[in-house]
C-alpha cells in the first residue's frame, strides 16, 4: 500500500496570508493513503527539507506531495531532498498553491478551498506515480556560438579559456559586430577599436576557437549535449586560406558603387572588398550582386592583380556538418529604420542622421576621416540637435514598446565629444527622461550638462524640416511650457534598437522561445537570465534584451560559465518522462511515428507473448534518448498502447477527478 506524506509550505506570509495552512494539513490527513501531513514556514529551507527527509524515513513514505510555490521554482529542490532520503525523486508531486492560488486570491476562505483541491489533485496523482530513472546521454565537448560580435567573441574566448573547443558562426565577412562600428565607448570614452580589435585577434589566434565567417546556421537537430548543426559557408569567391589581405584587388576593381555597410552606407566600396582595415579574417570577399565578372562574365581584373592567386569565381556555397554539446545565441541587434519616423525627415534630408551613422561620421576610419562634416555639403556644422527615443517606448505600432537602454548614454557621449572637439558647435538634446542607471553613468551625463554646456531640453520634437537652407526643429520645452522652433545644421536621431532580423529564424531552429519583440526569452528572468528554457541553448548579448557593452560582456561571461558547466560533464541525465508503448496493445499502425517531431519512434518485428499466444508482431519502439516527452503520440494512438511516464493517462484522469469531485 502507498504511504503518502503531504507537506504544506507557508512561504512566510506569501501563502499563509491567504491560505489557512492548518486546514490544508487537516484536509490532507483525511485523504486516502496519506499517513503524514505537516506545515512549515519555509519548506525549501534546509530545515524544511529536513522535515521531509525525516518523515520519509520515519513514516516509510512511498510518495510525497509538497504544497508550495510553482514546480518551475522548487520541484528539483524537493526531488533532491526526497532522493537524499532514499525515495525515488519522481515520487514527488508539487501542488502549486502560491502562484496559482495564494497570490491571486484575496479571500482566505476561497484560497483555502482551492489549495485543498490542488492538494487533493496532487495526492491523487502521486498515488499513481511510479519510480522513474533518468537515462544518460553523452556530451559532445564542443560549443557553437552564433554571432561574432563582442558578445559572441567574449563567450567563445571564455569557453576556450576553460579548454573546450568552440566555433563562432558569423554571417558577415568579419567578426566584430556592431562594436567595431563604434567610435568611442561610454562612460570612459576609450576608443572602441582599441579595446575590441585585440579580442578579435585573440579569437582568431586561439587554437580552440574556429571562425566560420560569411556563414550561417542552416539547420539544427538533436538535443542538449548532442546537437547536429549544418553550417552554410557562403561563397566568398576568394580562397580564404590564400588571400593575404593586401587590398590590391580593391584598388583595381572597376565597380566601385557598392554601399559600404560598415560605414552605414555613407560612402561606397568596390565589389571586392575587405569590410574594414582590422577585419578578421583579413580576407577579401566579392559581392555577387555587384561584381561585373560574376554578373556578365566580363572583367576578371581582380584575378589578374591578385599575385597570391586567391580569386575563385567558381566557388560555391559549402555545407559543413558539426556536432556540438551546447549552443550560444549571440545574434545581436540593428537600429530600426528611421524612415518610419519621417516627421524627422530622415528620408528627405541628408543632414538628418542616426546615432550609428554619427559614430561613423566621427570615426577616424569613417567616410570623413573623423572630421565632423554635414553629409549634404561637407561643411562644418555650427549647431547639432539630438532627438532621443526615436521609436523607443513607442506603442503606436511604428516603434518598439521597450526602452532601448543605451541611447541616453551614447547621446550624452556624442554631445560631449562634439563639444570637446568643436567648442564652437551648439548642441541641443531633446529628451523625455534621461535614464542613466549604471556605474558612473549619471555622473557622465551630468558632465555633459555641467562641464560641456550641452543644452538638454525636456520634451519631444514634433517635426524636423528644411527651410531657407537650414534645418528647423519644431519641438516642445515642457519645463517652459513653450513650443520652440530651433534652427540647426544637423539632427541626430537616437533610433531604437531591435534584435537582428535573423534572430527569429535562428531561435526557431533552436526551438528557443522568443517574445513579441523577437528577443529570446530567458529560462527565468531573474534566476536563469543567460539560459533559454530549451536545454543546452544559452543567451549572450542583445539577443536577450537591450544592453550596453559592459553588460553584454558580463552576460557573455555568464553564458560561457553555463556552457563550461555543461561541457564539463561526461554524461547528462535525460528526462525520464518519456513515452513508452504497451507491446500487447500496439497494433503497429504507425500513427505515432508520424506525429513525433524527434523521430524517436520506430517499429520492430518482435516475438510477443499475448496471454499465451506467441506470435511475431510489428510493434512500436521508443528511443528514450531522443524522446522529449511532449505526448503527441499518446493521443493519436488508436489502441491506447502509448502512454507518457510521469504524465500518464491515469494520472491526469485522477487529477481531473479530484478537481471535479
Amino acid at each position, binding site marked *: 500500500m502507498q504511504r503518502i506524506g503531504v507537506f504544506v509550505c507557508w512561504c512566510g506570509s506569501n501563502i499563509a496570508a491567504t491560505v489557512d495552512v492548518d486546514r490544508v494539513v487537516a484536509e490532507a490527513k483525511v485523504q486516502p493513503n496519506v499517513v503524514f501531513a505537516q506545515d512549515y514556514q519555509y519548506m525549501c529551507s534546509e530545515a524544511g527539507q529536513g522535515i521531509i527527509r525525516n518523515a520519509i524515513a520515519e513514516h516509510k513514505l512511498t510518495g510525497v506531495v509538497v504544497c508550495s510555490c510553482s514546480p518551475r521554482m522548487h520541484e528539483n529542490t524537493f526531488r533532491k531532498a526526497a532522493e537524499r532520503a532514499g525515495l525515488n525523486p519522481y515520487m514527488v508531486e508539487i501542488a502549486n498553491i502560491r502562484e496559482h492560488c495564494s497570490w491571486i486570491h484575496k479571500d482566505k476562505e476561497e484560497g483555502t478551498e482551492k489549495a485543498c483541491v490542488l492538494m487533493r489533485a496532487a495526492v491523487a496523482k502521486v498515488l499513481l506515480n511510479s519510480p522513474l530513472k533518468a537515462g544518460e546521454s553523452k556530451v559532445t565537448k564542443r560549443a557553437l556560438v552564433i554571432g561574432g560580435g563582442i558578445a559572441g567573441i567574449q563567450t567563445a574566448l571564455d569557453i576556450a579559456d576553460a579548454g573546450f573547443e568552440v566555433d563562432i558562426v558569423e554571417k558577415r565577412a568579419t567578426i566584430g559586430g556592431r562594436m567595431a562600428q563604434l567610435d568611442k565607448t561610454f562612460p570612459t570614452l576609450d576608443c572602441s577599436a582599441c579595446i575590441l580589435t585585440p579580442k578579435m585577434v585573440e579569437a582568431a589566434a586561439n587554437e580552440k576557437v574556429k571562425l566560420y565567417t560569411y556563414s550561417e546556421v542552416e539547420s539544427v537537430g538533436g538535443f542538449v549535449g548532442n546537437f547536429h548543426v549544418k553550417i552554410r559557408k557562403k561563397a566568398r569567391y576568394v580562397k580564404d586560406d590564400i588571400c593575404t589581405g593586401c587590398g590590391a584587388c580593391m584598388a583595381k576593381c572597376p565597380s566601385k558603387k557598392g554601399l559600404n555597410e560598415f560605414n552605414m552606407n555613407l560612402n561606397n566600396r568596390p565589389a571586392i572588398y575587405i569590410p574594414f582595415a582590422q577585419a578578421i579574417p583579413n580576407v577579401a570577399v566579392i559581392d555577387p550582386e555587384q561584381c561585373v565578372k560574376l554578373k556578365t562574365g566580363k572583367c576578371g581584373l581582380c584575378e589578374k592583380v591578385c599575385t597570391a592567386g586567391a580569386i575563385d569565381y567558381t566557388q560555391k556555397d559549402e555545407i559543413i556538418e558539426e556536432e556540438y554539446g551546447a549552443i550560444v545565441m549571440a545574434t545581436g541587434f540593428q537600429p530600426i529604420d528611421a524612415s518610419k519616423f519621417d*516627421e524627422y525627415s530622415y528620408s528627405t534630408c541628408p543632414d538628418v542622421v542616426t546615432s550609428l551613422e554619427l559614430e561613423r561620421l566621427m570615426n577616424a576610419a569613417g567616410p570623413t576621416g573623423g572630421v565632423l562634416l554635414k553629409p549634404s555639403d561637407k561643411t562644418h556644422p555650427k549647431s547639432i540637435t539630438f532627438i532621443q*527615443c526615436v521609436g523607443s*517606448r*513607442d*506603442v*503606436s*505600432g*511604428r*516603434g518598439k514598446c521597450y526602452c532601448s537602454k543605451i541611447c541616453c548614454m551614447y547621446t550624452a557621449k556624442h554631445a560631449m565629444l562634439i563639444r570637446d572637439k568643436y567648442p564652437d558647435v551648439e548642441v541641443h538634446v531633446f529628451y*523625455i527622461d534621461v535614464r542613466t542607471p549604471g556605474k558612473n553613468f549619471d555622473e557622465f551625463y551630468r558632465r555633459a550638462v555641467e562641464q560641456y554646456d550641452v543644452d538638454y531640453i*525636456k*520634451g*519631444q*520634437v*514634433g*517635426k524636423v524640416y528644411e527651410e531657407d537652407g537650414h534645418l528647423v526643429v*519644431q*519641438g*516642445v520645452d*515642457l519645463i517652459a*511650457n513653450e*513650443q520652440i522652433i530651433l534652427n540647426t545644421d544637423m539632427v541626430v536621431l537616437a533610433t531604437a534598437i531591435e534584435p537582428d532580423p535573423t534572430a527569429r529564424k535562428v531561435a526557431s531552429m533552436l526551438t528557443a522561445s522568443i517574445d513579441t519583440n523577437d528577443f529570446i526569452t530567458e529560462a527565468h528572468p531573474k534566476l536563469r537570465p543567460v539560459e533559454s528554457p530549451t536545454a543546452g541553448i544559452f543567451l549572450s548579448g542583445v539577443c536577450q534584451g537591450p544592453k550596453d557593452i559592459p553588460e553584454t560582456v558580463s552576460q557573455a561571461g555568464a553564458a560561457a560559465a553555463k556552457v563550461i558547466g555543461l561541457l564539463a560533464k561526461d554524461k547528462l541525465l535525460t528526462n525520464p518522462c518519456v513515452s513508452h508503448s504497451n507491446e500487447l496493445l500496439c497494433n503497429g499502425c504507425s500513427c505515432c511515428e508520424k506525429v513525433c517531431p524527434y523521430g524517436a519512434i520506430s517499429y520492430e518485428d518482435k516475438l510477443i507473448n499475448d496471454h499465451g499466444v506467441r506470435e511475431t508482431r510489428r510493434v512500436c519502439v521508443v528511443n528514450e534518448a531522443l524522446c522529449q516527452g511532449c505526448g503527441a503520440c499518446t493521443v493519436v494512438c488508436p489502441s491506447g498502447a502509448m502512454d507518457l511516464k510521469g504524465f500518464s493517462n491515469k494520472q491526469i484522469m485522477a487529477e481531473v477527478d479530484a478537481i471535479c469531485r
Partner: protein
Amino acid sequence: MHFDQKETANLITRMSGTDPKKCMKCGKCSASCPSFDEMEYHPHQFVSMVVKGDVERLLASKSITKCLTCFACVQRCPRGVEPANLIEAVRVTALRQQGTCYLSPDDVPAIVDDQIPQQALVSAFRKYRK
C-alpha cells in the same frame, strides 16, 4: 447644479474613446501642434489635466476652439493617446453642459465672402455650435 469634476473627466475620457493614462509625458503632441501658440492649455496639458480630473478650467478655456483638428498629435503620439479626441470631447462636453455657442448665425454674413465653401460653414457650425 452640482458639478463633479472627476465624474466629468471620466465622461470626457469615455467620450474620447482614448486612454489618457497611456501618456508618458513626452510632449510630442504639443511639439507637433500647429496651434500651440494660440492655446492657453496645450495638447499635453489636456491629456494630463483630464487624467487628474482637473477639467473645469479646460471647459472654460478658449483653447478648445483653437484646435485645428489636424490630427498631427494623434498621428505622432508614440503611446497611441489621441489628444485631438480628448480636446474634442472636452469641447463637446462644454457645448452640451453650458449651451454656449462660439458661433452665432448672426455673425456669419459679416465674416464670409462669396467664395467660401459650404464645407467651411458646415464644419464651423458643427464645431462651434450646440
